[in-house]
């Protein structure tokens, strides 16, 4: 499977993401720069985490308006898989590729720790390496992960099974509504999540719970 990682000024998890994709798939992803108007012919496009444009205006707001996002939108409309992690999730929301918004953490503090995630929809091309209801560990590191959607949008997202990851009871680090940690679009090919599964893929990381996400996506054994 071929993948591409999007690079924007201020992102800082791009190397971790490239390492995870390379280690698990055996193929190094291509990289795409923010001003590119075309994305190469790949099966998966990943927007990694960080602080694009210094989080100026709102997290992900400036990045979401860069030329590469229009190219990603076109690919997503054609069914190409797109995944945004942390700042990448914020960018996908700002670009309107996913519903809702991410607000400042309820505690107002930057959180950097390990949380427990519940897989609430294992029937997606991203989560097929997990089982429904499985609890996994994952690191989080963010200041604005407090997911919010108006009542109507939230009911639709919940009703359509678009909530893919939820913070397990008692580990919600940011006050997000319904403990939402990650959602997928209605078509099932665009995923956004706050946690960093790419930072828990080998024993040296202290665990491998993130591996099944990439293995599931890449269609290789975990």
């Amino acid at each position, binding site marked *: 499977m071929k993948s591409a990682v999007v690079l924007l000024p201020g992102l800082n998890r791009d190397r971790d993401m490239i390492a995870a994709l390379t280690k698990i798939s055996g193929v190094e992803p291509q990289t795409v720069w923010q001003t590119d108007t075309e994305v190469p012919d790949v099966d998966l496009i990943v927007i990694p985490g960080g602080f694009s444009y210094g989080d100026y*205006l*709102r997290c992900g*707001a400036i990045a979401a*308006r860069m030329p590469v996002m229009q190219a990603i939108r076109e690919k997503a409309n054609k069914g190409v898989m797109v995944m945004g992690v942390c700042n990448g999730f914020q960018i996908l*929301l*700002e670009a309107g590729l996913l*519903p*809702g*918004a991410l*607000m*400042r*953490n*309820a*505690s*107002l503090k930057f959180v950097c720790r390990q949380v427990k995630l519940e897989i609430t929809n294992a029937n997606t091309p991203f989560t097929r390496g997990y089982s429904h209801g499985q609890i996994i560990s994952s690191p989080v590191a963010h200041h604005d992960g*407090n997911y*919010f*959607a*108006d009542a109507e*949008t939230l009911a639709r997202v919940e009703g359509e099974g678009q909530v893919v990851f939820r913070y397990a009871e008692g580990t919600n680090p940011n*006050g997000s509504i319904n403990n939402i940690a990650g959602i997928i679009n209605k078509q099932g090919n665009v995923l956004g999540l706050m946690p960093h599964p790419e930072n828990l893929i080998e024993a040296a990381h202290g665990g491998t719970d993130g591996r099944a996400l990439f293995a599931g996506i890449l269609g290789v054994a975990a």
Partner: protein
Amino acid sequence: MKARVTVTLKNGVLDPQGKAIVGALGSLGFDGIGSVRQGKVFDVELDGSDKAGAETKLKAMCEQLLANTVIEDYSVELL
């Protein structure tokens, strides 16, 4: 031409920063504060003198960038 764009959180959207400000004001001895909602102000300078055109342009800027209309409302004022 100068304009001021004000962006505020929609009703019903929680504002933890506003709450923290209420707490800090309380600790300074300001009592009787029901609530504080934090927002943003953009002072924009535009070329030309077409007021109607400027207003249309500013609203488009708000829709496309200055506000996230999922969680924020905006207002435009020509100064």
